[in-house]
C-alpha cells in the first residue's frame, strides 16, 4: 500500500511536471497567444507555431502585429503556413516581413466581407532552430492592432497576450 501510494504520488508529480501542451484558455477574457505555447525543436529542424485569438466578442476585420524573437537562436520563415484555416478567411491579404529579430505581420480581409468574432487561428509560422538555448516569441502589446470593417482601430479590453517559449536542443 505504501509503495502503491508512493508510485501514485510519483505519477501525479510526473504528470504535473510534464511540458504542458497548449490547451484552450479557460479565462473568459480575450486572448492573443501562440499554440503551442512551449515549443521544443532541434537545431536545424523546424516546427510550426500558430498565432491565435480566443474569446473575441468584438468583430475584427484586420490585424497587425510586431513580434520579437532571438535571431541567433531561431529563424522565422518569411512566409506563412498555407494550409491553415485562418480567421481572415481564404480571401485575405497577408503580409509578413522579417526584419532582423522582429516579425512584421499584417492580415486583412478585403472589402465586401464580414468581420470575425470568437476564437480561431490567425496564421501559422515556421520556426527553425539555430542554436541551443531557450528564447521566446514575444508579441509587442503596444504594437498589436485590431481593426474593424472600416479600418478603424478596435480596442480590445482586458486583452491577455502570451508569448511562446522556444527551447532549441
Amino acid at each position, binding site marked *: 500500500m505504501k509503495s502503491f501510494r508512493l508510485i501514485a504520488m510519483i505519477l501525479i508529480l510526473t504528470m504535473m511536471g510534464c511540458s504542458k501542451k497548449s490547451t484552450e484558455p479557460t479565462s473568459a477574457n480575450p486572448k492573443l497567444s501562440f499554440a503551442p505555447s512551449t515549443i521544443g525543436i532541434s537545431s536545424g529542424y523546424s516546427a510550426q507555431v500558430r498565432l491565435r485569438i480566443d474569446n473575441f466578442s468584438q468583430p475584427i476585420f484586420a490585424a497587425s502585429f510586431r513580434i520579437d524573437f532571438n535571431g541567433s537562436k531561431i529563424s522565422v520563415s518569411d512566409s506563412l503556413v498555407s494550409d491553415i484555416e*485562418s480567421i481572415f478567411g481564404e480571401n485575405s491579404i497577408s503580409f509578413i516581413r522579417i526584419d532582423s529579430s522582429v516579425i512584421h505581420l499584417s492580415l486583412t480581409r478585403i472589402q465586401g466581407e464580414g468581420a470575425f468574432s470568437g476564437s480561431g487561428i490567425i496564421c501559422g509560422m515556421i520556426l527553425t532552430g539555430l542554436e541551443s538555448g531557450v528564447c521566446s516569441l514575444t508579441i509587442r502589446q503596444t504594437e498589436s492592432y485590431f481593426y474593424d470593417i472600416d479600418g*478603424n482601430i478596435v480596442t480590445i479590453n482586458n486583452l491577455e497576450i502570451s508569448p511562446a517559449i522556444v527551447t532549441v536542443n
Partner: protein
Amino acid sequence: MKYPVIIFLVLFGWGILFGQGLTINEFMADNLSTVADQDGEYDDWVEIYNNSDAAISLSGYYLSDDDNLTRWAFPDTSIPSHGFLIVWVDDDVNQVGLHTNFKLSAYGEAVNLSGPGPVLVDSVSYGPQMTDISSGRYPDGTGSFRYMYPTFAAANLGDQIIFPDSSQYVFNDSIVHRFNLHFYTPNWRDSLKHYFEDLDKKYFPAQLIFDDSIILDSIGVRYKGNSSYTLSRNTPKKPIKFNFNKYRDSQTLYGLHRLNLHNSVSDPSFMREVIGYNIARRYLPAPRTAYANLYVDGELIGLYVVVEQIDKIFIRRYFENNACNLYKAGNNGAGLTYLGENQGEYESLYSLKTNEDENDWSRFIEMIDKLNYTPSRNFVDTMCKWLNLDGCVRLLAFNMVLSHFDSYTGSGRNYYLYDDMDAGRFNIIPWDLNESFGVYTGGWDVFAQDLTNISNLSQRPLNRRILEDDSLQQVYLDYIAQMSAGPASYDSVAALTARLFPLIDSCVLADTNKLYTYQNFIDNIDNDVYVDLRRLIPGLKSFARIRNDNIAVQLTYKTVFPGDTDNNGLVNELDILPVGLYFLTTGTPRFKISNNWQPWRLPAWDNLPAMYADANGDGVIDERDIIAIGVNWGNTHIVSGRSFTIDLDDSFIEKYRGNFETIYGSLSGASAPIIAMKALLDSLFDGAFSRPTPSIFSLDQNYPNPFNSETIIEYSIPQNQDVTIIIYNLLGQEVSRPVNNQFLEAGEYQIHLDGTILATGIYFYRIKTDQGDIVRKMTVIK
C-alpha cells in the same frame, strides 16, 4: 416721403444726357457668377447701345468713372445700328478685347461716356448694386435705369426687371442712420433690464423716429443676446431688438417687422459683422447690415451695427415660399447629430421660429437621420434632395476662411436652417459674426486651423460628411480658394475697412458708451489688440493677411486616399508595390492615423510617392499600410495630382528586384488579391518567384526503398542557401556527392540517384545546409 425719392434718383441716375444715339444702356458692378470674359474672369462690365439707324464709330470716344472724362479711350471700333457693345470695366488693359483701366464700385459711383472734345455724351450715377444683378435702361437707350437680371449684349427685357423691396433704404450702408427712441416711462433702463432678465425677454413699448423722418408709435423694444448681453450688462450700451408690429399689427419699418442693433461686443473695430456679412451675402442667404446711432430722447446711447432679422421677411428675399419652417440653433451647441425620433430631444437644442402652432419637426428629424446615416456611396445623391449641399459647403468654407468658429463649425451655434419645401431642401444661413475674423477660438488656432483636419468632426456630421466625400471636399477647397483670393482676401478686406472707416470714425469717437477705447478701434483695423484682461482680438487686416497666407500654403497640400498607394484612383494589387518599395520610409504623419476611405490632405513629403504609400498616415511605411489596401479594396476616387503607378520597364524592375522579391516573399495566402499580386510580381521576372517555397527544411525518405537501379530523393529548403548532398557507405566513406555545395533558391528538389554505381547494401544520404544536416538510410538490393 422725400428721402426715398432722393435715394431713388441716386440709385437710378440723374442728369442723363443724350447725344448722337450712343447711350450707356446697362452695367454690372458686382459680377460674381453671371458672365465671364474670354479669360474666364467675372468682371464688371458696361454695355453701350447704338440707338440710331446707322453704325457709329467709337474712335474718339471715352469711358470714365470720375471727372477725368478721357480716362479710357475706345479703340477704333464701331457699333452697328441698334447694336450692343460690351466693355469689360476690369482695370486689365492687357487682356485682349475691350478692357478698361478702371473698375466699377459695387457701392456706388458714376459711369461717363464721352465723345470727341471731350464732350459728355451719357452718364449714370448709381448707388449700391446687388451681386449678379445689373442696372439697365428699359426701354433700351431711352428708359431709366432699373435693377434687372442681366441681358448681356442684348436688349433689356421688361420681364427681367426686379423690384427690390424698400427695406433696402434701412440697409443703405453709405450713411449712418439715426434711431431716436422715446420711452413712455422715465425709468426705461431699469424697465428694459427687468423685462429682459426677469420677464423672459419681454418687449417694452417706445416711439421710434428713423432718420428724422419716419415716426413709428409704439414699437416693441427689448435687450437681446446671450454673451453679447452678459459681456455688456454693466454698460449703458447693450444689444437691442426692435419689433415694429408688436403693438400695431400692420406697422413696419419699410416692410421690416424686426431689426437688430448690435453693440459690437468683442469687436473693437465695429466692422466685423458688416464686413463678414458682406462676404457671406456673396455666397449664402445672409443678413444685410448698416450703421446707426441710437438715441433716447436725443441722448446718444452709441453707435450700433444694424443687422437684418432672419424671419419671414428675410426669407421672402431668397425663397419663393416663405411660409415654411425656420429653425435656429440654440446656445448650447446644435451639431445636427441624430438624437432619435423624439421631437423633444431636438427642441432642447434648436428652436422653431415659424409655424410654431403646427410645431411639426418631422422633416427636420428625417433630414438629420439621413445626414447621419446615409451610406457614403449614396450620400450626395440622397442628401442633395434634403439639403442645399452647395450652400452647406459654402458655409463651411466661409467659416474656415474667416475663422468664424462661434458657428456650426466650432461651437455649434449661430446658424439657421430654412426648410424650403418648394425645392424640398433645407438651407443653412449664418448668424452672429461679431466674433469672426478669429475672435472666438474654441481652442483652435484661428490663423492656421487645418482646412480638412478638424478635430470635432465626430460631433459635426454635416462637416464630416462634406469632407469625407471626394467631390464635395474638392468643391469646398475651390470655394476656399475663391473666397481667400477674392472677397475675403487681404486687399478686399482692406478696401472695405478703408470705405467704412471714414463713415464711422467720428461716430465711434462720439460714442462715449462704446465697449472699448477709440484707440482700440483705430488699432484693431490693422493689428491685434488686447481687451478685457488680456483677451486677444486679432486685427482685421492682419488676420486676413496671415490667414490667407496660411490657406494658400494649405491649398498646396496633397490628397491621399488610404490604400491607393500609387494614387491611380483604384485600390488593387498594384498598390502593394509602393509599400514594398518604400518599406520603412518615414515622413510627416497625417493629422489622424486612419484607414478610412476619404480624402486626407497633408503637406507633400520630399519623397512624394512614398507619401501615398503611407496608407494609414502614421508617417512610416510598414506592414500596417496593408490594412488600408484590404479595407478599401476595389475603391475608386477622382485622382488629383500625379499618379505614381510604377512604370514596370526593365531597368526599373531590375534595379528594384530585391525589393520586389521581398514583397513577393512577404505576401502570404491563396486569396484572390494575393494571387493577383504575386502573379503581377512573378510576371516581372519571368516566373522566377513562383517556384514553390516550402516552409520546412526536410529530407524525405527515398523511394523506392529498397531499390535496384534508381531511387528518388526529395528534399526541400525554405530559404536560399548552399546545399550539399553526400552518399555514404556503412563504413562512413563517401561514395557519391550528387549535390556539391550548390547555391539553391528556396524550393523543393528531387535527385534521381543512379543505383547502378552502388553495390548491394545499406547506405546513408546526408543533406548539409546552413540550417543544419539531416541523414536518412537507404538500401540497395541487386
